[in-house]
Each structure stands twice: as C-alpha cells, then as structure tokens.
C-alpha cells in the first residue's frame, strides 16, 4: 500500500513541477536558515566538559569594603590572591585550583626560530586532573612543586610540534622569559569551548600553550592577561611587582565536589571563612558567598553572544513564514485535485486511505526539502566559518543536529500537509463529480 501511495505521490508531484518546486524550496530555505542558526547556538551553548561539569564549582566570597554596599550585591567575579591562597590551602574540596591567564616569551633553543609570545596559564597542581586535561606524554607537577616554586612546565601538543617536532619532550628544558623550565608533560589536543575556567580573556577561541605553576609565575613576575576588579585604593600593582594589590580580585578559583552534599558543606565552609576573615578585620561585609556550578556560571556570564540568540529567533521567524507559505501551497495543490479524490472516494477508497496518500506527498516534499535544507545549512555554516569572529571556527554540523534537521523538515512538512489533507479528504464527491 505504501508503495502505491509513493507511486501516486510521485506522479502527482511531477504533474505540477512549479508548485512542487516552490514547496520544496520554501521548506529548504526555512530549514537551512534555522539549522545554521541552531547549530551555531548549539555549539556555543554546549557543555565544555560533559559528564564532569556538574562536579565543578566556582566559589565566590566578598572581600570588598563596606562603602557602597547594597543588599543583593553579588560578590566579585574573581578572588583576591590572599583569599585564593587561603581557600587553596584549606583543601576542603576533592580538588581545587587557583589560576590566572598570561602571556610568556618562549626562547627556542634552535637558532632558526625567533623568540615568540604564547598565551599561558599560571595554575596549581590539581588543574589537569580536575578538568580532565588529557596528557600525551608525562604528567603535571605535584602539590610539592607548587609549594617549592618548581621550574616545571606543561606544554601543549601544538607547541611540542613546533619546538620538538612532536617527539616526547618530557624531561627536556624550555627557556621562558629568561628562566629555564623542565617540561613535565605534554597535553594532547585539548580546547574546551567555551573557555569556561577563565571568561575574562574571551569566551571562545582562546588557547593557552604553556602551563606554569602559579607561585613560580608570580615569583618571576610573568605578565598577566584578563581583568582585575579593585576597590578602595586598590590598583594594578606595587611593591616591586606588576600584580594587583590586596584590594583587587583578579584570580579564578575552581573546586571539584563530587556530591551535592559536599557542595552544601563547601558553601557552609565559605560562610565560616567569610565570618572568620570578618573577625580578623579583613572582610567588612556580612558573609556574601556564591557557589555556582560550571553551567550556572556560564549562564550567569551570558557567554553565548546575544547576536547569536537573536539570529536563532530570526531564523525561527523565517521558518514560520516558510511553513505558512507551504501550508498555503499544499492547500492549493490538494484542493485542485478535488476531482481526482472524488473519483477515488466514489470508487470506494476510505477517507483514511486518501489522507495517508496526501500525507505521503507532504512527507516526500519534506524529505526533499530537508535534503535541500541540509545542503543550505552546510553552505550557511561554511559562510559562518569564514567570518573572523572568535567562535566562527567552531560552527560544524554534528550528527545530532543532522538528525534534528531531517526530523524538523519532515515534521514541518507533515504539519503543513495535515490541515490541507484533512480539508481535501472532506470534499463531497457527488458535488465534484457532477460539476465536472
């Protein structure tokens, strides 16, 4: 029966090529636009660490002065060096890491390469295990290395390929800003998007190539990147160093807590910590702590560019117009066949059969439109990738979105065919047979 439906449907679609082409084109451009915008949105609002993100939290405490305090004020988005070190040393979480972005000059041993700057991350030992960073060779440094200001460094595969032709460089030395470091590990390709652990250096397309122990970097006065937020007379750095003063929040602190109970306990610990610091006179405000998990933190920071959301809405509006258009065209097409349908009804075909027949036709239009839409979406994403935006390179169609494309196209065309088919099946055969 289905084969028969298909046969009739194909004949009918062929009979009026212009109308069929208009319907297919209408579905295709609607789906194409929608899928392009949805894919960009999907890629940008994705989970950077699936399976792990729910266990990662971003503790915030409020060390600001009492001046200008208002109820409901959020604590600073980063921590001060003092609070960061205190929380790090308290070791109340399963894992914890304090970090800051920066840039360092690399001086290659080979004379054929000029010195160059790379983006760097100054962090503490747990960073790699906590964020599931995959090692190609070697491993990170240890807690002891943090404390001893070890001249240890982890580099990325990209830098390893540039400097050591991709060979295992663990144990070799690397000159950074006039200091000799020992390579303890090489990270395999790893680029979480968005760059969740530090959103102050740009949310996408930011990739460190060198990881140095935080204390070592501070001791050597390596340059830092990203923002700092100061209050009172706080400024960007004195006492011989280029670092912000004690009344500036400028580092990121992350913890791993593998159960909600631990998270609740950790939040309690942050409150105790704030009270203790207030008793010591360092904090002036009542405890004001936050403990968002990774996805909440991304959401709070609105990392998805608002233009991308606007584009998705625009694409949905466009799809809606295309669908209304298709409904109208299908209605015209089906109504025109009132005569043919009446003959089939008169010869004993059930309404249900005719309905299935007409839906088969809309389904075929949907599949053709979906294929066209897919091609258009691939073209659209290619256009997006050619743009210089920081997220452009990420715009690729994944299998899930491929399935969504076809489901959307088929669903949309069946929906568009449903009403016209119902109306066409309900024709009065006698009237049409007589009038012809």
């Amino acid at each position: 029966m289905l084969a028969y439906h298909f046969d009739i449907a194909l004949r009918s679609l062929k009979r009026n090529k212009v109308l069929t082409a208009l319907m297919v084109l209408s579905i295709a451009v609607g789906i194409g636009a929608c899928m392009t915008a949805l894919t960009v949105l999907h890629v940008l609002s994705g989970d950077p660490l699936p399976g792990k993100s729910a266990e990662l939290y971003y503790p915030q405490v409020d060390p600001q002065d009492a001046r200008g305090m208002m109820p409901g004020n959020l604590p600073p988005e980063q921590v001060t060096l003092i609070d960061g070190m205190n929380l790090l040393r308290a070791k109340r979480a399963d894992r914890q890491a304090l970090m800051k972005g920066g840039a360092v000059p690399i001086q290659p041993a080979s004379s054929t390469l000029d010195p160059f700057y790379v983006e760097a991350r100054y962090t503490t030992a747990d960073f790699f295990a906590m964020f599931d960073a995959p090692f190609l060779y070697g491993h990170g440094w240890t807690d002891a290395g943090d404390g001893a200001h070890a001249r240890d460094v982890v580099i990325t595969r990209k830098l390893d390929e540039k400097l050591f032709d991709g060979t295992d460089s663990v144990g070799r030395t690397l000159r950074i800003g006039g200091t000799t470091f020992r390579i303890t590990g090489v990270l395999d390709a790893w680029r979480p998007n968005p760059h969740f652990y530090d959103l102050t250096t740009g949310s996408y397309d930011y990739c460190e190539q060198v990881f140095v122990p935080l204390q070592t970097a501070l001791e050597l006065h390596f340059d830092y990147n990203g923002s700092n937020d100061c209050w009172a007379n706080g400024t960007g750095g004195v006492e011989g160093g280029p670092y912000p003063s004690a009344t500036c929040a400028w580092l990121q602190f992350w913890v791993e807590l593998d159960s909600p109970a631990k998270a609740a306990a950790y939040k309690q610990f942050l409150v105790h910590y704030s009270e203790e610091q207030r008793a010591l006179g360092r904090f002036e405000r009542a405890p004001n702590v936050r403990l968002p998990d990774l996805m909440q933190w991304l959401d709070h920071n609105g990392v998805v560019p608002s233009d991308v959301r606007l584009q998705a809405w625009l694409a949905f509006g466009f799809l809606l117009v295309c669908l209304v258009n298709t409904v109208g065209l299908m209605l015209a097409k089906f109504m025109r066949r009132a005569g043919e349908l009446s003959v089939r009804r008169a010869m004993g075909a059930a309404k249900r059969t005719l309905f299935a027949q007409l839906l088969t036709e809309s389904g075929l239009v949907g599949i053709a439109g979906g294929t066209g839409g897919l091609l258009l979406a691939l073209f659209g994403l290619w256009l997006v990738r050619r743009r210089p935006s920081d997220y452009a390179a990420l715009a690729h169609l994944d299998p899930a979105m491929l399935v969504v494309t076809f489901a959307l196209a088929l669903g949309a065309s069946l929906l568009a065919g449903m009403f016209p088919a119902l109306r066409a099946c309900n024709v009065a055969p006698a009237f049409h047979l007589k009038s012809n």
Partner: protein
Amino acid sequence: MDILPILATLRRHKVILWLLVLEIALTCAIVCDGVFLVTQRLQRMDMPSGIAEHELLQIQQAPIAPPPDRYARAQEDLAILRQIPGVLAVGMSNQLPFGGPSSNGNVMLSPTQPHPTLSAAEYFSENLVPTFGLHLVAGRALESDDYIDADTVLKSLADGSGKGFPMPMLISQALATRLWPQQSPLGKLLWLAPKASFRVVGVVATLARANAYNTATAQYSMIIPVHMGADKDQSYLVRTRPLDRQRVLAAAVTALEHADPARVISHTRTYDEIRSDYFQDDRAMAAILVGVIAAVLLVTGMGIVGLASFWVAQRRKQIGIRRALGATRTDILRYFQTENFLIVSFGIVAGMALAYGLSLLLMAHYEIPRLPLSYLPVGAVALWVIGQLAVLGPAMRAAAVPPVVATRSV
C-alpha cells in the same frame, strides 16, 4: 474598480485568504523590525571615535626579558619612532577607541561618595592630543611637567599619602556635560579612588572608549598624563599621512627591532583595521538581517505566485464567462491586481500590529529601543511592491483566457 465583488469572492475562499494574510503579516513584521535593526547597526558602525582615523598606526611590543628601566625604555622607543621620516607625531596609550582591551575608572564627585557616579575610560597616555588629532575645545593641553611615572602614582595610592594628587586631566565634552551640566568643567575636581583626585584642565570634543558597547556612555573618556613603562599592554602610536602608512609602519618595526633585537613586536595595525575589526560583528549581523529580509520577501512572493496561479486555474471558467459577457482583458488584469492589493493591505494592517508587538518583545530581551512608527510604512511599501510583482504573471495569464472557454465544459 468595484471592490465589492472581489470581497464577495474572497469570502468564499476564507482559508486561503487567512493563510495569505497571516504570511504577509509575519513578513511585514519581520521586514519592519529587521530594517530597524539594520539601521541601528549601521548607525553604531558610524559611531565617531574623535581621532584622525586614517592617519594613525598602532604598534605593540614586548621585551623577552624586562628592561632595567621600563620608563627610560619607553622614552627611547618614542624618540626612535619620532625620527622616522614622514612621522607627524608619536605617542603612547594604554588603549585606543574601539581598540579591544579597555581600562575604565569609577568616577566620583566627592571622595566619600558611597556609589560612583559613572564609569569612564582612563587613557593613561603620553602626547595623546596631537597624536590622535583630538580637537581641544576648552582649557589647555597637557604639558611635559604634568606627567609623572605610573610607579609613583601607584606607590602614592598604596601608602595612602595621596602625594602628587590632584593630577591634571583632560576629559571629553560628553563626560563634562554629563558631570557638570550647564557649568564650565575647567578647574573642577573628580575622584577615581578616595585618595586619587584629578583636576580638569581641558576638554576635548570627542574621544570614544575602547569598549563602546552602550551608545549613551560611549564617549565618556578621561586623558590622564602618566608615563607608562614599555610593556606588552601599552601601544606606541604613530601619526602619519594616509599614503605613508605602510612605509612608516615597516620602518618603525625595523627601527624598534634594530634598537633591541631581544623583543617581540606583537601587533602592528592601522587604525582603519582596528575600527573594521571592532565592528565586524555588527557588519555581519546587518548583512544577515538584510539577507533574511530579502529571503522572507522572496518566499512570500513565491507563495503569492503559487496561490494566485491556483486561483486563476480554478476560476478559468468564470473568467471565460466574464470575458464572454464583455469584460476586457484589462478588466480581468485589474481584478486580480486589486484583489492582491486588498489581501496584502489586510496583511499589512495585521503586520504592523505584529511588528510593534515583536519590537516590545525584542526590547524586553535585548538592548534595542522601541520601533519608531516611521519604520512601519517601509514594510507596507515593500509588501505592496512584492505583491503586485508576484501577482502580475498569474494575472496576465488570467487575462489571456479566451472568452470561448465559457462555452466548453472543461
């Protein structure tokens, strides 16, 4: 043209009529709001920077190992740049209008104020007025004995002595008007921290911020005479004639590298590139919007062609009868054109209401002003034109139906 018979006919085709009206209304709403959004973006891209854009070059460099004296190094580098033939002025700044990373300060009008009045860009800079080509509208320019080293300022703030303050500063006209409306800003004091006071000595006409996200506050800028040491976050600025830019830039890079081979020149750009980079997302968004507006009009046009063709085919016999009863070809043509005009007009009326609703929805979620009523006719005209173009083909086919059709039973 008598429209009553047309209305009577349309009443017999309610479903298709409603679908067309709905489609036209949606299209009208998208076109009205879309055109408005495009205009907004284009206006943003035209935002003035206040500087001689086609004459400015930016060079950023970083030493491999920190020089013994960052301040002396910066002065040496500026002297080297000044000697390049074709250079009109050289300066140094921690940021540029629309230039990416920004430095901003919270402005207070008294040191004990609990909440800052506003946030404004802090241009910690040297020789900025001649290098940027800024227009001084009141007061005096900064002079060499106004400048102090950044370290001195930071130490003074850290030990709480407030030594060296109040410092002289220049502010933009927009900031002056916002802080002291109807008053002369010259000689007025403002604070960036309880111990950091500044005296306004001059006003420049326009100077945009590095992060000009918000049009209302985009021109709030302060120029502070501070010697910054040579480091990766400072920009050397070179002003030259537009035609000399590439030559001067190449000469500048060579001269700097020659002076100290152990440094990395990290960024060299003309200001035109900076502006183009900053507004690239607005440009792309405007292009996408124009594309969607065109596509949505095209789709609606195709829909009108399809449905009008259906109607013409369905009414072939009636058209034949009218022709046989004496209607001319023009009468038939006019009939379909008028019918289309009526349907599109219904759609436009609904579409304008929809456009307004959509605008309110957009306002709730994005920083977009309310849709000005003057944009509504844009959508109306676009749809009338598209409708008439789309219906022309089917209407001409209808007009070509010969009267003899009336005598045939299909």
